[in-house]
């Protein structure tokens, strides 16, 4: 699984909206505190859709903080 980190929950919601529109399966989850101590959220996607997601993020000028490979249990 890939965890997408963005600077603010508002950006997460924007990405959520974009992915929903494109019917890309994803999940909004609390960002693990060791990655971000604030109340931020992250988006979790399957690696299969990573390339498509990156393309969408670039097209929509979304400033990604991090893309992290994480375990399925997160």
């Amino acid at each position: 699984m890939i965890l997408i980190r963005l600077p603010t929950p508002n950006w997460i919601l924007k990405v959520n909206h974009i992915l929903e529109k494109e019917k890309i399966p994803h999940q909004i989850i609390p960002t693990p505190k060791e990655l971000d101590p604030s109340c931020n959220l992250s988006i979790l996607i399957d690696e299969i859709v990573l390339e498509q997601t990156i393309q969408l993020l670039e097209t929509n000028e979304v400033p990604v903080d991090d893309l992290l490979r994480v375990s399925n249990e997160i």
Partner: protein
Amino acid sequence: MIYLDNAATTYPKPEKVIETINFHLRNLGGSTGRGQSQWAIEISRKVYDVRTKVAQLLGVNDPLRVIFTYNATYAINMVLKGLLKPGDRVILSSMEHNAVVRPLRNLEKRGVELVFIPCNAEGVINLDTLRNQARQGAKLITVLGASNVSGTIQPIAEIGKISYDNDILFLVDGAQLAGFEPVEIDNWHIDAFAFTGHKGFYGPQGTGGVVLSSRLASLLEPLIEGGTGSKSEEEYQPVFLPDKFESGTLNSTGIIGLGAGIDFLLENGMDTIASHERMLRDYLIENLEMEKSINMFGLLDSQKTTGILSFNVKNQDISTITNILDRVYGIMVRGGLHCSPLAHKTLGSFPYGTIRCSFSHFNTQDELLYFSQSLKEILRRG
């Protein structure tokens, strides 16, 4: 009771708005952008959906350029006080509401120069004078989209072109225009469009905001700073939108209600509602124009106005008439200056102001017939 004060706030609110707010208050605890619970996420999603609706309705692609505030006045203050510095020149129309005039008069004391562009007796801005003043340079042009006194709609697209051609930022007070006519913020070169949620959008009071251009957003200092739910480890305000300008807990209940109001507007058709209000305005003009003691202000052509009609009565006190209408006939209109002394000076109704009737989707011809008959009865009695 008959309610004809929709320019102050629309009433009744659509059932859908009431139900949505009720549901939200009963069933969803949490705060948008704060916390990571499923409810907090759900509320955040709903608020984001409303950003999307506002953005689409006002002609911008990026919902994150929509900044929520508590009303249009707050949004206007945010722009004026966050942007203007001593020595800056600001061009404004002679129809502006005190939401714009008062903060600017305060800034004038600190060295901001104000240039007033005259409007004609119908409230329409003189574009030639504006063009000439814009050529001399300014930091900002600010014009209201439609008058809260006469309903006169300003040529916003043309003013935007003048701003753009002269590299001047452009602020629109859209309190009366938003929800009445289509607005194209980006195509019209608007850098800041202030809106309110409780008028043409049929939402609750305490909602509103401003849509910012990227170039203005980067220049603007926030009016308040504080917690945003993002970058909490940092002691400095975030610079990205909308967080830069949205410190403190948002009125998520109200914003979600605003979203339901926008849904109502779109389901019924903004054009259809505007046509209905214009039909009512024409009907009222028709009913009152034979009364010689009544003096109407602004444009009589309702195709160039919102659903507002202002008038006064020769040798009669406005407050007395509005009070009798209210207490005896159960009709609520607004009498006075409507927080817009400058507009009344332009229209010729200063210092006593006007009786203002303003309509919504829910008003009917029968109500206006009753209003006209009641008013005529009052006038006959003297």
